[in-house]
């Protein structure tokens, strides 16, 4: 027994609420192992989730947890990170919650590069609400709102996140826990927005409607859609059509993180405010001029202060 999971779980809430064979438990386990390897304390971590099967994770994990409204988990997490930059903030959610309903928040968190780790459990369906098809359901698959198969084109979440400017984007698979743990660990360590898209089986609401009710059978079916990143390099574009590449898809080490740049702005603004306060009182010394140059000050300060001050002094 490598990791003592009972340390991180609320054991009085067990057994887990998910259906037999659901991949959410595998992802949760990989995630707890990654946290254990990093050695983070329980009080330093905050977990946010929206509504859905995967969002029930916050009930079982003994961190600071918040169960928020549908699709808005990333927005809440970004708020927590901005007010507590020293905490590690994570978001758990399904494809319906984060991509379909809260897609706007996902895009803007990617753009801002706020230091939040999003573990997106992609099971191709709205599991909890009764098996409605979502934006990631593969064409032809049956769902409760598409009894003759879906006909809509799907969205590739990882490509969307890369386009929006996310720092770290990876894709994992619940049937491959060893690799998934490495991907989650790398995402947690990364300073900036990291999205880990995990393909996970839903044997009840997706599997049974598509004659894949056995969890092992569904796992093999999902595996046939996935290609590892090393293998994908050797494949042609035609072969890669309809397949999803696993592994780290994008990592940007140079993009500035939001809380760090915000802290820099606060420091500069405070310096400029101090400078102007001393300027008005007439107690400006030579040392203060070294702290901030005149050009920097003019860029930062939103108002033209010097001209009215001069006018006022003349009176």
């Amino acid at each position, binding site marked *: *027994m*490598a990791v003592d*999971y009972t340390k991180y*779980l609320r054991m009085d809430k*067990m*057994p*887990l609420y*998910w*259906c*037999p*064979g*659901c*991949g*959410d*438990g*595998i992802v949760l*386990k*990989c995630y707890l192992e990654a946290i254990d390897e990093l050695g983070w304390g329980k009080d330093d971590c905050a977990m946010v989730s929206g509504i859905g099967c995967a969002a029930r994770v916050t009930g079982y994990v003994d961190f600071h947890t918040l169960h928020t409204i549908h699709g808005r988990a990333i927005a809440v997490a970004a708020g927590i990170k901005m007010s507590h930059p020293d905490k590690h903030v994570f978001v758990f959610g399904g494809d319906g919650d984060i991509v379909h309903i809260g897609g706007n928040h996902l895009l803007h968190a990617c753009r801002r590069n706020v230091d939040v780790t999003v573990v997106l459990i992609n099971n191709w369906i709205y599991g909890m609400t009764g098996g409605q098809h979502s934006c990631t359901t593969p064409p032809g698959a049956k769902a409760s709102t598409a009894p003759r198969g879906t006909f809509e084109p799907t969205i590739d979440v990882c490509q969307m996140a890369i386009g929006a400017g996310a720092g770290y984007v990876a894709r994992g698979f619940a*049937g491959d*826990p*060893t690799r998934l743990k490495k991907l989650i660990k790398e995402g947690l360590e990364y300073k900036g927005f990291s999205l880990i898209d995990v393909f996970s089986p839903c*044997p009840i609401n997706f599997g049974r409607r598509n004659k894949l009710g*056995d*969890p*092992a059978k569904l*796992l093999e079916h999902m595996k046939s859609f996935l290609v590892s990143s090393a293998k994908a390099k050797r494949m042609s574009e035609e072969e890669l059509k309809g397949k999803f590449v696993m592994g780290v898809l994008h990592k940007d080490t140079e993009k500035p993180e939001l809380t760090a740049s915000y802290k820099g702005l606060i420091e500069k603004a405070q310096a400029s405010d101090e400078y102007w306060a001393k300027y008005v009182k007439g107690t400006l010394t030579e040392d203060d001029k070294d702290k901030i140059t005149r050009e920097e000050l003019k860029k930062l300060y939103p108002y033209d202060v010097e001209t009215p001050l001069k006018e006022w002094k003349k009176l």
Partner: protein
Amino acid sequence: MAKKRMPVEVNYDLCKGCGLCVHVCPKNVLEMVEDLHVWMGTTAKVMRPEDCIRCKMCEDICPDFSITVEDIGVELTFEDSKGNLITKSK
């Protein structure tokens, strides 16, 4: 006599009988069994503990935190499928 310790243990209070552990096990140690005394009706049971190589595939794939596998190197004493008491450290 040393205390009995199995290489693989299944917590029947948490197991939901999905069958993923049986699917991934390379040595066919586990088996799905119908048991009316557990809450879901079916559960995974350790049928051939002497074959276990402790690769932890079943522990990693179990979605319900019900399987625990001992680390390699820990000496174990347990009854095998034929009822003989054996000691194993690999």
